[in-house]
């Protein structure tokens, strides 16, 4: 018998092909060494929202759902994970600062609209449908980069691992999260409408992430336009180091 998590993973796997291509294009971009800060900025926009969104989802469980086992489980899960995610945006601010982008510039810059859309749809569902929707978002996003891959990127681009601490920390801390999430999902007394909503949320997350990664790549392209380049975060120090190795 197919479990809830197997069914969800299969669906995500089938429909995340374009997203995987876009993620690949970012990680293997020939100028990633210069433009990694722009990638980090996009991730910052997502990460800064995680703990507050989970706390809000937990509040919605308390406010709207009958005091059944599903509501209690969801509330506890969201609160526990909000605690885990709190402060992770600081890793990104530190990484950006180490690459020459002061935190004040990050805080002053408007996040991508695609990031706001990615996160915003979750608020719609948790306020107007059911806070279980956020599990679909977690199912797609909770997929840390492997440490071996990060080491390869560092070697290939010259970006120091120390400036990839957000990715590195997630790689080290999160490998068990996916299995934990799947086991928890399979233990829940889900109704068909819960399953539909989790899938819809996961699918919307894929679609919005496609826009986020497309935006990152679009910014990578616009770096050569002097007018656009003023707002794009770059790391000239890494670029110089990398180029000097090539000669």
């Amino acid at each position, binding site marked *: 018998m197919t479990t809830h998590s197997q069914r969800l993973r299969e669906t995500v796997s089938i*429909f995340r092909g*374009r997203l995987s291509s876009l993620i690949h294009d970012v990680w293997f971009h020939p100028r990633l060494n210069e433009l990694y800060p722009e990638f980090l900025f996009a991730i910052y926009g997502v990460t800064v929202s995680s703990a507050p969104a989970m706390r809000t989802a937990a509040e919605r469980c308390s406010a709207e759902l009958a005091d059944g086992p599903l509501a209690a489980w969801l509330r506890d899960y969201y609160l526990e994970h909000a605690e885990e995610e709190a402060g992770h945006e600081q890793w990104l601010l530190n990484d950006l600062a180490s690459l020459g982008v002061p935190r004040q510039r990050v805080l002053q810059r408007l996040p991508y609209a695609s990031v706001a859309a990615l996160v915003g749809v979750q608020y719609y569902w948790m306020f107007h449908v059911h806070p279980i929707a956020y599990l679909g978002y977690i199912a797609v996003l909770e997929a*840390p980069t492997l440490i071996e891959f990060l080491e390869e990127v560092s070697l290939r681009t010259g970006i120091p691992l120390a400036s990839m601490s957000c990715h590195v920390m997630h790689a080290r801390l999160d490998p068990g999260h996916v299995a934990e999430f799947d086991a928890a999902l399979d233990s829940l007394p889900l109704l068909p409408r819960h399953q539909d909503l989790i899938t819809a949320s996961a*699918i*919307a997350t894929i679609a919005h992430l496609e826009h986020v990664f497309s935006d990152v790549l679009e910014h990578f392209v616009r770096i050569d336009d002097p007018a656009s380049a003023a707002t794009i975060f770059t790391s000239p120090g890494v670029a110089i180091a990398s180029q000097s190795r090539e000669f």
Partner: protein
Amino acid sequence: MTNVERLQQAGLVQIHHPLTDAEVQSVNQLSAAEIDALISVRVKLGDDFFQRKVQDGDSHRMGTLAL
């Protein structure tokens, strides 16, 4: 009409694209509401995916974002 046919009709799956048996089975197990969601957000399973498909291993190594 099957789910795969609905996705083909919506232009999300290319008719000439050979879905694997496992993919067909997975898609056809989805509910009507789940297919509606796929069509609504236009997540494609088509040429772009199959011409530039990232190997599953790479996809796993790169991750997504991580919360």
